[in-house]
């Protein structure tokens, strides 16, 4: 556990990406199997201990610390594992168990035995090792190393024999502790290929386009499509059909209505929507279907799913990803004409002659209930990840309101211990009603100001939440408004972010609930 704890510590405090890559590489090269593969799994988020969850940590904290002091400490530190690691009442020495002992202990110990086991480990470890151990249980290490970075370090470790795209390719068929993967990277074993298993292929993602990018691109090189307001999915047709989320999560069970229609062998890229009588329903309807492991018949009827296809990665066993976009598109159209799957259609391409015409189409997107435009280079191969310059997303302009800060909470991760998460509201007659909560959009300087402002303008405290004086106005940008039961206003904003602080604006002049309600599709003037 000690080398792993040191790795986490060094990763967290190493400022540069190259330094982190070097640390990871050195760790993978020097730590033996299976510990190195387990560390890789911890970083990539592929470890799961069904019986050891954050609730276990809370239970131990409740047993060994004062509940009030624990709550206050957690609120300040902003991270469960770190809070418990620091306030655990023993000093600890370095008789820590190995990483593989910890992983097998967490995986194989019956639930009833786990609290005593973890408690004995915590008593024996120093705070740094306790932190690493508890992070394994909470998942999400927050040390500034992603699965992607770990894969790049693995590619470097192979000294040119393997590139990172190849690792991405086989990744979803591998499992911890990844011994065949390391053997392959070190030239001691074959490529660990998954024979005949349905495999998720990492999708190609678009970059948001800004004015300088727009000015630089030649419209003749690009194909335009609408940007649909659903969720990105990958479909695997064939004998074992599958529906994957963009991150590779298997969602087949949640969407039997889609999977039932995927008999033809192909790997397709598209948008999952809810459609009724040929009309795309609002995103809120798609949300109704997400995370329902076994949707009821009533759900399937009320929220009928649909996929709108825009790319094809494989046709049968033929890999099309190296072909130009337009060639893949022709193959997709021909395949679609033959296969004609139900509950699917093609995302149309939009003919255009110049950027001005696209600007006009984008300006009308909100009215048409569309999220914006996609611009794809006609000659772009299908590249995993987010390559620059090939695909662009050009979202509709955000909406904006002026809202008043009502409550503040401390943040997590980089914003830990700063009051950085704000609930804001608008006027409903004489009263302010909350319409959203956000921590995004603020610069470090604004964060320091807001944190200090909250501390000096608190009027009441409810556990970790501070109610503040209703005097500070924020300009909030958001993608859309929808009906919701989350806030007592009955309205929620989608993707809200703080555009700026409006010190000069009196709170009484902030927006009203009526102004916000008008922005809900179908409820405007």
């Amino acid at each position, binding site marked *: 556990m000690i080398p792993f704890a040191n790795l986490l510590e060094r990763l967290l405090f190493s400022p540069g990406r190259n330094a982190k890559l070097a640390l990871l590489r050195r760790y993978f090269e020097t730590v033996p199997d299976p510990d190195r593969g387990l560390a890789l799994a911890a970083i990539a988020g592929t470890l799961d201990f069904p019986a050891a969850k954050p609730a276990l940590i809370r239970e131990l904290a409740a047993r060994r610390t004062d509940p009030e002091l624990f709550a206050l400490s957690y609120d300040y530190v902003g991270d469960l594992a770190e*809070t418990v690691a620091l306030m655990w009442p023993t000093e600890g020495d370095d008789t820590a168990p190995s990483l593989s002992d910890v992983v097998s202990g967490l995986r194989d110990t019956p639930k009833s035995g786990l609290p005593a086991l973890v408690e004995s480990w915590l008593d024996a470890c120093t705070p740094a090792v306790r932190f690493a151990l508890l992070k394994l249980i909470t998942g999400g290490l927050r040390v500034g190393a992603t699965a992607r970075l770990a894969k790049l370090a693995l590619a470097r470790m192979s000294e040119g024999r393997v590139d990172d795209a190849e690792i991405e390719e086989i990744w979803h068929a591998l499992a911890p502790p990844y011994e065949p993967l390391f053997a392959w990277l070190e030239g001691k074993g074959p490529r660990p290929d998954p024979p005949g298993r349905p495999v998720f292929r990492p999708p190609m993602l678009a970059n948001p386009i800004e004015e300088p990018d727009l000015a630089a691109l030649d419209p003749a090189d690009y194909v335009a499509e609408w940007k649909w307001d659903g969720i990105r999915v990958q479909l695997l047709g064939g004998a074992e059909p599958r529906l994957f989320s963009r991150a590779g999560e298997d969602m087949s069970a949640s969407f039997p209505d889609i999977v039932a229609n995927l008999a033809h062998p192909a790997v397709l890229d598209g948008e999952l929507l809810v459609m009724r009588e040929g009309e795309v329903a609002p995103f809120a309807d798609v949300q109704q279907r997400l995370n329902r492991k076994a949707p009821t018949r009533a759900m399937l009827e009320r929220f009928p799913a649909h996929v709108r296809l825009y790319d094809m990665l494989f046709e049968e066993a033929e890999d099309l990803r190296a072909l130009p976009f337009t060639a893949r598109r022709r193959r997709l159209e021909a395949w679609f004409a033959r296969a004609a799957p139900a509950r699917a259609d093609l995302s149309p391409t939009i003919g255009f002659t110049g950027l001005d015409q696209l600007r006009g189409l984008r300006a009308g997107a909100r009215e048409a209930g569309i999220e914006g435009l996609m611009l794809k280079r006609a000659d772009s191969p299908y590249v995993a990840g987010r390559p620059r310059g090939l695909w662009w997303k050009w979202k509709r302009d955000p909406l904006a309101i002026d809202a008043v800060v009502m409550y503040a909470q401390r943040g997590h991760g980089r914003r830990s211990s700063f009051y950085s998460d704000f609930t804001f509201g608008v006027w409903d007659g004489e009263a302010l009603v909350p319409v959203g909560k956000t921590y995004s959009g603020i610069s470090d300087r604004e964060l320091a100001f807001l944190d200090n402002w909250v501390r000096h303008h608190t009027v009441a405290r409810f556990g970790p939440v501070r109610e503040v004086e209703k005097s500070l106005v924020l300009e909030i940008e958001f993608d859309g408004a929808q009906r919701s039961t989350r806030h007592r206003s009955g309205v929620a904003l989608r993707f809200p972010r703080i555009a700026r602080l409006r010190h000069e604006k009196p709170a009484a002049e902030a927006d009203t609930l009526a102004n916000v309600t008008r922005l809900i599709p179908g409820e405007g003037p």
Partner: protein
Amino acid sequence: MAHPSTWLTTRPAGLYCEPGGFYLDPHSPVAKAVVTHGHSDHARPGHGAVLATAETLAVMHARNAAPASERAIRYGETLSVNGVAITLQPAGHVLGSAQIVLEHAGSRAVVSGDYKRATDPTCARFIPVPCDVFITEATFALPVFRHPPAAAEIARLLASVALFPERTHVVGCYALGKAQRLIALLRQAGWDRPIFLHGALQTLCDLYVELGIELGELRPVAAGSGLAGEIVLAPPSAIADRWARRLGDPVVCAASGLMLVRQRAKQGGVELPLVISDHADWPELLSTADDVAAPEIWVTHGREDALIHALGQRGIRGRALRLVGRDEEE
């Protein structure tokens, strides 16, 4: 006996002694003040008359915060003002830092200012004074704050210097107290090379030397100088700034009790956090409460909720003063 709550009150400018007619560490200019130590959130400029230790007054002069008139007293010396006996006792926070012991009408209150219990080669050690009301800070009043011995943190710094001899270690630290304590700790650990200073730290280091604290050879950081393998001290605001980058591949370090919280250290762009604090940590706050045996403890600033809760469990009545104008950190 008149309980201190009848003669010590909070006013907009801060804590006020009614019969004595003076403030304690007021945060805006007043006619008469007693000041615990020279940090700018305790020793504000613009006061009429100030009573403090000679060292604290010297610091106020060095920082252009000198009052119109001043009176220095030594630790243990007592001065009577309108029937209030004022005695200063060491607080162990920075050079000249004092607890203010107030006795009036048969009761005693102690204003600790900021304090720590760990040893510090640059200032006199905290002396607990039994009292009816103890008025404490609570900067690190959460059980997560258990500060390791400072010598162990200095050893980590020197280990890093040995590991990266081609890089410059730039340590962010406050100009008053922390900088000089770090230098003295480095000297105790055997680091006898010159230590390099950002210009903002020079005046107070000079003052410490003048007041008899040995700091060894100190040099200013010259423009464009290569300082590979050396240790440079700079104010916290300079370490993540262009100033530090000109030193060439610096290892950015920071010395503060807050460095215990990883994400806090991370927020400041720190690569080597050093947990060295001039404030009492959680065990010190609680042991001090035991040592002064006060039935009632008032908390000036910091994380008062946790401290008041823990005091309550020990049968001590806690009260939050929520004084404004105190820095959140050190």
